[in-house]
């Protein structure tokens, strides 16, 4: 869940207010937005991806971080390079290359597909012991 809006980094652009799919933030006239409905946060990291100032930290926990958790401690998180982390992977921001250029999902999907062909993949009883048809991908979900 969203835990931190950094006071020192935020430039009040309200992009996070706009892009959060579950409307967690609330704009504040003349100030930083606030986390108004944390319990509605679905931990999708989209606000982090879109914040131009690397001012947000979304903790990976499905619930609120316990009191005193380092996941709410801005100084600690900054020292670990946690702000703007998802943006770096996506390659979003000035002067960066899109991370998708390094997407190798095809390798991992292909790996499963080939395993299915040679029968290494034992989906549960799916073909009842009969040979698998060629090219069968047992839908890995990604």
């Amino acid at each position, binding site marked *: 869940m969203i835990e931190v809006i950094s006071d020192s980094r935020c430039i009040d652009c309200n992009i996070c207010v706009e892009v*959060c*799919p579950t409307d967690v933030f609330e704009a504040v006239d003349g100030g930083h937005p606030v986390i108004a409905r944390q319990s509605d946060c*679905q931990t*999708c990291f989209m606000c982090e991806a879109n914040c131009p100032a690397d001012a947000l930290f979304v903790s990976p926990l499905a619930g609120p971080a316990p009191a005193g958790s380092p996941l709410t401690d801005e100084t600690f998180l900054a020292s670990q390079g946690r702000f703007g982390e998802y943006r770096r992977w996506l390659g979003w921001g000035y002067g960066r290359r899109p991370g998708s250029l390094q*997407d190798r*999902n095809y390798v991992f999907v292909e790996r499963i597909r080939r395993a299915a062909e040679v029968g290494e993949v034992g989906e549960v009883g799916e073909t009842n*012991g009969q040979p698998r048809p060629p090219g069968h991908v047992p839908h890995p979900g990604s």
Partner: protein
Amino acid sequence: MSRRRATPAVVPGEVDVLVLGGGPAGTWAALEAATRGQRVALADKGYCGTSGSTAAAGNNLWYVPPVGSARQDAIAAREVAGGHLTERQWMERVLERTWDAVQTLADWGYPFPVADNGEQRRNSLQGPEYMRLMRRRVRRAGVVILDHSPALELLVDPDSVVTGAAGIQRQRAGTRWAVRAGAVVLATGGCAFLSGALGLNVDTGDGALMAAEVGAELSGMEFSCQYGIAPAFGAQTKGLMYQFAAFTDAEGAELAGGLFPSGLLDVQRAALRTQVYARLERAEPQIRQAMRWSQPNFFLPFDKMGIDPFTQRFPIRFVLEGTVRGTGGLRLVDDECATTVPGLFAAGDAASREPVTGAISGGGSHNGSWAISSGGWAGAAAARFAAGRPTGWSTAPLRPAGGPGLRPRGHHIVGPRADDVVAALQSRVLPLEHNRFRTEQSLRDSLAVLDSLWSAVVDGLAPDSSDAHAVVRSREAAAMLAHARWMYRSALSRPETRGVQVRDDHPDTDPALVHRIRVGGLDRVWTAVGEARPDTHPQARVPGALAQMAAS
């Protein structure tokens, strides 16, 4: 003074095509309608470009080149895996359409990776990049985008033709919106019951509820029990990388492993009695960086927790993805993605994906291709329908069709609270013991609870209309409850194990049940036999005794 980037769009009073939902299905639909010179508006509950399953998760596609027998092989394989509920003609169309659409994405500049041979590899779309691009194209096409504007109900004309929708603007103090439209495309995604699975809390099945209120029917709702694997601390249900996992129980004994989590069903069964752990120990060190670049949203949560998933064992849990990575949804009646209701078209996860995924999850490649294809078809058909409407639709009186969770029938009853309704229905649909491993008894027990909840909701669930979030939540509660009842009634009508449905009291696949199951109704939920042996492939075989369990 804080800055606003852009002034939010003005709600148009009338358009030709109104698209509800702005994920891949909705954006492809809007583009297709707009290219035909139609006035188009798209309303999303959240924000078109970040909202929904694809934006957060990303999509590997069902993307097969038109080379040799590749497509026929892929189709034949799916017919078997999908329990013979697929349709060859739909699969062919989807493969073709996806191929073309991906070319379009390349032309628009989607940054596809380039393989060693210098060719682009185009079978994967990273969510944030893909949906940001789709938003840009939709805007450029002149579509009016209404963000943070969940639709609450459909509007029908005196002939019961769907002629628009109405909703609420939750970032504008709950101002109501209503748009008259010549046709409506429902692309509101599936229903994941607020389980928290990656990006899915916007997908609460609102579209199917709205459609059912005007008489639409559904299909495949028994195949709605897809669970994703997530680290226990979170709910990020990206699954592909678990092909490198070894799964162990609390004592450290190995439950399953291998190249692919072969015995995933066994692992889920084990999860009923023990905490299950995983470790991606089978990934060779030299491929780990490529794994990270491929699925940064899989690794991000571990990095933030300071866990190295390659070397450290971490507890996992199974999170319901409902109909998003299940199969069921609104039943389409023709190639154009029409529903059973005139003026109403459906696309993406809002529609049943049985034609291309059959009885198993399509959430590893087929769903994304289906969203692209069905979105395009639905958008085009809606545009044609709108253009062909007799004059007069612009001025016909419209009736709002919304009921449960919006307009309680009882007047003096103290109704249930939406949050309590959600908690109660979740207790019957989220746990593996109720939904993964089904028996007639457990289904009936669940339905008893859900049916009485439904009566209470219909009579008395009344949101505080001054609170936009409460209004939306109330409607979502009703939609999820309707889904739970459709899902379990359908499951009762399929006394066998097929695809993702596992019936512990009927562990075999019954050759007599190679047909789809239609379902519909709200107060009284009915089921009926649907298309029988839609897959008429001559060599069709009945799949094996146990469900195919993909590592979705």
